[in-house]
């Protein structure tokens, strides 16, 4: 179903300092474990192929080798512990100024995104997609509206749980521009697998432009078909759950649709944002994502095209 090209989701391809720390630790553990495994197997094969020793062999030799092996094991485990603590320390260290602060709220099954600023009119609300500036630190605050979800952008950071009535914080920085996919990493119900998000790491000017676009209200063109679509939206049950800033729709239960057409995917990364997919979603969302909380909507066929024109105009 997903034919989106150009994004990555990989923990072994770090794009920032946080994921690099984790990647180095993972590499260290991998090679230590490989070495230990090779040694153990080598000794096992040696033990199997060696001739049985004389029954009179003194115990001291055996004892010495057991003590040596135990000491080496404890030494390796301590080394790994120290490496792990150092990584944790590096992840928790914050040495940056002017971070971008983003609050992410998990819902069954989509992500609410809230860019926080000291001035209320600077704030941005969107869904299922975040844009971050390359080279600047980002603070992610994760929380949830219903059950426990988990935020994980493998290319950029470690995992962080989104817990109801509680805010967990993590910081990250993208050093390479790109599109990174994020997946809910804590089983959260029927559509857990369809709860993704794309992270766009962009150069600062492009990010600022995106932010300014998102801050403005809906800027749909004033064509007759689009206006008819807006009327349909405002008279249909849509506005009970969705917000389109600049119209009468101010529901807060579902994703904010003010700039729906600027987003790359629909239904939390389930499918590309195309008019056809959007029409399918509006008319029968339960076939695409069974169990999701969007109720069935009765849109007469003559109303569907104007409604789509309106939604597609929300850039």
């Amino acid at each position: 179903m997903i034919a989106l090209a150009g994004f990555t989701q990989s923990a072994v391809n770090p794009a920032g300092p946080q994921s690099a720390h984790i990647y180095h630790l993972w590499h260290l553990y991998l090679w230590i474990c490989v070495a230990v495994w090779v040694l153990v197997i080598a000794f096992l094969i040696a033990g199997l192929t060696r001739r049985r020793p004389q029954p009179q062999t003194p115990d001291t030799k055996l004892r010495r080798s057991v003590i040596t092996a135990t000491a080496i094991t404890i030494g390796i485990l301590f080394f790994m512990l120290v490496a792990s603590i150092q990584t944790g320390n590096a992840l928790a260290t914050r040495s940056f100024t002017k971070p971008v602060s983003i609050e992410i709220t998990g819902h069954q099954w989509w992500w609410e995104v809230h860019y926080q600023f000291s001035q209320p009119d600077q704030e941005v609300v969107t869904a299922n997609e975040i844009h971050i500036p390359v080279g600047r630190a980002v603070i992610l605050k994760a929380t949830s509206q219903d059950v426990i979800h988990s935020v994980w952008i493998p290319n950029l950071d470690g995992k962080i749980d989104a817990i109801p009535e509680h805010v967990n914080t993590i910081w990250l920085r993208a050093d390479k521009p790109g599109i990174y996919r994020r997946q809910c990493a804590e089983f959260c119900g029927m559509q857990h697998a369809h709860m993704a998000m794309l992270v766009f790491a962009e150069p600062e000017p492009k990010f600022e432009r995106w932010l300014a676009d998102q801050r403005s209200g809906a800027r749909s063109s004033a064509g007759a078909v689009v206006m008819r679509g807006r009327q349909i939206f405002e008279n249909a049950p849509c506005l009970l759950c969705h917000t389109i800033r600049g119209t009468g729709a101010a529901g807060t239960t579902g994703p904010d649709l003010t700039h729906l057409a600027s987003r790359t995917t629909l239904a939390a990364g389930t499918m590309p944002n195309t008019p056809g997919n959007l029409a399918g979603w509006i008319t029968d969302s339960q076939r695409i994502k069974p169990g999701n909380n969007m109720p069935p909507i009765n849109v007469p066929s003559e109303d569907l095209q104007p409604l789509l024109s309106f939604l597609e105009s929300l850039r």
Partner: protein
Amino acid sequence: MVRSTGIMKRVTKGVLACASVLVLATLASSCKRESRTLRNEPPQRGLYDAARESTNEPGGKLPKIGMPSPAEGNAYAISQGQRLFDWYNCSGCHAQGGGGMGPPLMDRRFTYGSQPANIYDTIVRGRPNGMPTWGGRIPEFQVWQLVAYVRSLSGSEPSAATPGRSDGLEKKTRAQLQ
């Protein structure tokens, strides 16, 4: 003689094995899961006649007593109704059942009847002095979920289906308080 005992043993073993398989199969099939319909009907305008408030009827026909609620006593429906209660802002006027601008829902005094069909009609048609008409906006299955939740607030739903700890206020029966 010895041989026939051997056969008997084998037959008994076979019968026992078959019987245990049958018992297990029966047990497995009798575990009834609460069924959930995912593809429900969209909301329709009009066409609502769940309950009759008046016995007056031209031609003297017997009034319909009320439509049975498909969500009655269904734990999933009640918990889903609880979410919808906030999502559709019922809590804006009724608070968490304690009442505010709208009447409280925790007591069993319902102005327009406390049967599921009555509450359904209240939500769908609206009532004078402030209750809006939700028919055509909220789909029928969600209205029934709301009905189940509203009834659970006053303890009218079976306790087996209601959560042990509600997120909002909840009327306690005398037995629950003791």
